[in-house]
């Protein structure tokens, strides 16, 4: 009978146990997963079973890791995203979460740009850690992304984006994600990129402060190649702070919009 072991095809004997397969293929494995659930060595295997053998603490080799990571992607998705280059302008609450989501999805190349340093006040919503305080955000995030998915290439640009350098930094980005904090900077980025690359899509965020209903955050097409994620109105202000849940909802709207664009689907509707 045919089974897969760590996503590779193998032939097993009828009524072979999971422990027998482990001893044959990866004797030092100390965890056996069959069809997604932990299994004992005595478990009888059936034709078509998916077996994953894990040795705790061992980092899989590049080929094996690729097979293991891609196994969880819906067919067709990995192929569509692995050669993509996505730009992310700003890696605060929105950008750091978007980068993590796209890296987990297997997007091949991320260009991240930000001038900022990790501060304690960022940790309420941004994807950084206490031991990264004081590091430039783009370098801290590049390290984190490599720990999540070493196959993702990250180009980290520690600089302040302005109309003179946006083309150079994001020239290879097929889609640009706007993830700035200040409204006038959002506008500056969109104007500059759209004027230079009118055929490329921009996914922007506006209105995700506070703790209003998550359901008021939406993805809309607001111009020809411009998609806006957020409630459109709730600005960060004293008494209406930025918090992980709602910023995360907006960030993942943006990440999903990018994924849908890469798959050739309209971000804003079912079609």
């Amino acid at each position, binding site marked *: 009978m045919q089974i897969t072991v760590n996503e590779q095809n193998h032939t097993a004997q009828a009524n072979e146990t999971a422990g027998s397969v482990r001893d044959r293929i990866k004797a030092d494995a100390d965890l056996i997963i069959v069809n997604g659930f932990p299994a004992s060595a005595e478990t009888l295997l059936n034709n078509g079973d998916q077996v994953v053998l894990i040795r705790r603490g061992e980092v899989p080799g590049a080929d094996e890791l690729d097979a293991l990571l891609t196994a969880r992607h819906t067919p067709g998705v990995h192929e569509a995203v692995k050669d993509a280059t996505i730009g992310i302008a700003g890696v605060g609450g929105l950008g750091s979460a978007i980068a993590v989501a796209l890296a987990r999805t297997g997007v091949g190349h991320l260009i991240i740009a930000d001038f900022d340093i990790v501060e304690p006040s960022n940790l309420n919503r941004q994807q950084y850690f206490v031991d990264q305080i004081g590091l430039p955000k783009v370098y801290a995030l590049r390290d984190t992304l490599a720990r999540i998915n070493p196959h993702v290439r990250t180009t980290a640009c520690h600089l302040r984006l302005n109309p003179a350098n946006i083309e150079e930094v994001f020239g290879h980005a097929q889609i640009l994600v706007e993830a700035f904090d200040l409204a006038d900077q959002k*506008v500056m980025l969109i104007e500059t990129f759209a004027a230079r690359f009118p055929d490329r899509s921009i996914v922007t965020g*506006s*209105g995700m402060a506070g703790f209003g209903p998550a359901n008021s955050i939406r993805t809309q097409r607001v111009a020809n190649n411009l998609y806006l994620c957020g409630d459109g109105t709730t600005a960060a202000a004293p008494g209406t702070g930025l918090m992980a849940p709602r910023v995360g909802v907006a960030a993942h709207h943006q990440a999903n919009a990018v994924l849908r664009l890469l798959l050739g689907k309209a971000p804003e509707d079912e079609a």
Partner: protein
Amino acid sequence: MEVTFNGRAHELTAGTSIQELLDQLRLDCLQVVVEHNHNIITRQRLAETTLNDGDTLEVIHFVGGG
């Protein structure tokens, strides 16, 4: 003349520039992205771009936070 402003018909004096329209509506050009006839235009061109009958304008207002 008439332009379509954010999906609705809007009466304007002929020769009005986009900047003049934004001023009339008290919209801060630093906080809005303007799409004129399906092209996003930079703020430097808002004053020099005059509107014509039948033009389409989308003005997207941004708020801070990210």
